[in-house]
């Protein structure tokens, strides 16, 4: 591998780390830490391994078959079930996109003090300009690199001097204390859902097709999925550890986006506070663009429209219109004044319900030698893939009942 390629891989990994955290990770990791301390760190590991396994799989499928996830959903599940999956995915995408747009506007408000609704319009306009004007890799890199400001939470977590023995204990699932079992399970579902959120695989697989990856890029696909998402998971650990040490003993519920930033400021002063807000701003801004494109990819792939960021807008007019409409609808949703943090909780929990219909076609095609030839799943990928599919099924069934009985984790 040449120095240039190594640099390209390193830059890709950096942007994947910076782009890993979205508003769902931020909300659920912070709230889980503030409620159960370190006891749910294991759930982050399970979620991160899951997204690594399925991202690698959908990237490989896309590289070999040249078909992204929703192409396969329609073919493998049939029109009816495929359409139901599409509708569910679009609703979840819209909710997530709206929550991310709300997150961007709140960060801008914490930086500027300007009115919230004005900043929603500014945020959507800025995101549309970025999505329209910037090339695909620049979108990933600008938002990914700036999202690296979130590493301030890793520094804060270390500076807080947590009891590392207790932290290590948190990586082992087991009995818990500090809250009811149902609330504990609700957070397990939320953390898995936040880590394995479907829009990530829609976006990733479509990106692989857009970048015209083939069998030569399978190594790069593996490295990006494993190292990018794997290291990105460390940011989730840092968020949970920070909340566990700083918020749990004080009984602080991080129900606002400013509260995590306050944690960074508490440890590192104004500079830490600003880094945290900027990091959150770009992490959720990048995720807003990803969710919006994911929605447009899904609908275009399902109905067989021409799609792609690389296509001139006039040639892929329905794809372009689709993502513009999603941004417009997301703006209307947040304009109602609905709390983006609450919206995030609903989006993550509803996305869990859509997970099986997203991941099953990937698993089936990754095993199909007529598509994949010698690149079909090996034994290990199958064992892990099937095991995760059962985990996904279990949490999909439990998600909404848990949300209702725990009053959204409030107990």
């Amino acid at each position: 591998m040449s120095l240039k390629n190594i640099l390209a891989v390193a830059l890709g990994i950096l942007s994947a780390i910076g782009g890993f955290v979205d508003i769902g990770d931020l909300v659920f990791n912070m709230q889980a830490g503030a409620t159960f301390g370190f006891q749910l760190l294991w759930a982050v590991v399970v979620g991160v391994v899951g997204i690594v396994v399925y991202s690698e799989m959908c990237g490989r499928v896309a590289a070999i078959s040249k078909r992204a996830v929703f192409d396969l959903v329609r073919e493998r599940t049939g029109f009816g079930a495929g359409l139901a999956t599409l509708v569910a995915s679009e609703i979840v995408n819209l909710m997530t996109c709206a929550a991310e747009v709300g997150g961007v506007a709140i960060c801008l408000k914490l930086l500027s003090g300007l009115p919230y609704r004005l900043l929603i319009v500014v945020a959507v306009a800025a995101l549309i300009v970025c999505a329209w004007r910037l090339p695909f890799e620049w979108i990933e890199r600008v938002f990914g690199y700036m999202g690296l400001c979130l590493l301030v939470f890793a520094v804060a977590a270390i500076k807080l001097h947590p009891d590392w023995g207790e932290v290590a204990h948190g990586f082992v699932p087991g009995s818990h204390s500090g809250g009811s079992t149902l609330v504990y399970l609700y957070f397990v579902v939320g953390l898995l859902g936040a880590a394995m959120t479907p829009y990530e695989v829609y976006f990733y697989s479509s990106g692989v097709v857009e970048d015209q990856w083939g069998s030569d890029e399978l190594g790069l696909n593996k490295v990006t999925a494993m190292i990018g998402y794997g290291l990105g998971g460390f940011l989730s650990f840092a968020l949970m550890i920070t909340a566990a040490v700083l918020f749990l003993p004080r009984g602080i519920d991080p129900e606002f986006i400013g509260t995590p930033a306050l944690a960074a400021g508490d440890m590192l002063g104004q500079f830490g506070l600003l880094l945290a807000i900027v990091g959150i701003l770009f992490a959720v801004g990048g995720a807003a663009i990803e969710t919006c494109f994911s929605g447009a990819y899904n609908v275009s792939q399902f109905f067989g429209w021409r799609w792609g960021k690389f296509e001139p807008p006039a040639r892929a007019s329905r794809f372009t219109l689709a993502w513009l409409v999603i941004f417009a609808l997301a703006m209307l949703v947040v304009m109602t004044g609905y709390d983006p943090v609450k919206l995030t909780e609903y989006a993550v929990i509803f996305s869990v319900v859509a997970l099986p219909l997203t991941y099953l076609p990937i698993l089936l095609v990754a095993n199909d030698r007529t598509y994949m030839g010698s690149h079909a799943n090996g034994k290990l990928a199958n064992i892990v893939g099937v095991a995760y599919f059962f985990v996904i099924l279990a949490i999909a069934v439990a998600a909404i009942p848990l949300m209702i009985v725990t009053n959204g984790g409030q107990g």
Partner: protein
Amino acid sequence: MLGRDAAAGKTTRIFTREHADELHESAAKEEASLRAANADARVDRALRRLTRLATTTTTALEQLGDAPEAEQRRLGAQLQRTADRIERLAGGL
């Protein structure tokens, strides 16, 4: 925590004002629901005390955003004492 950090210069003025506003709005909602709550005689006294503490919190948060540094320190300490009292009171219920 916000009051203490604001007084210690760990937050920006805009952040303090905006975050204090969010907290104030949330505290005002809690205060309103406490005022509207009905309780039996055993916990009625505790409920009234909780409502008074919620009022103190709401007022302090309202002032925190635009207060000068010394005042922010005083309000931060007051909010901390109130939070401790609420925790003790809630623990006793």
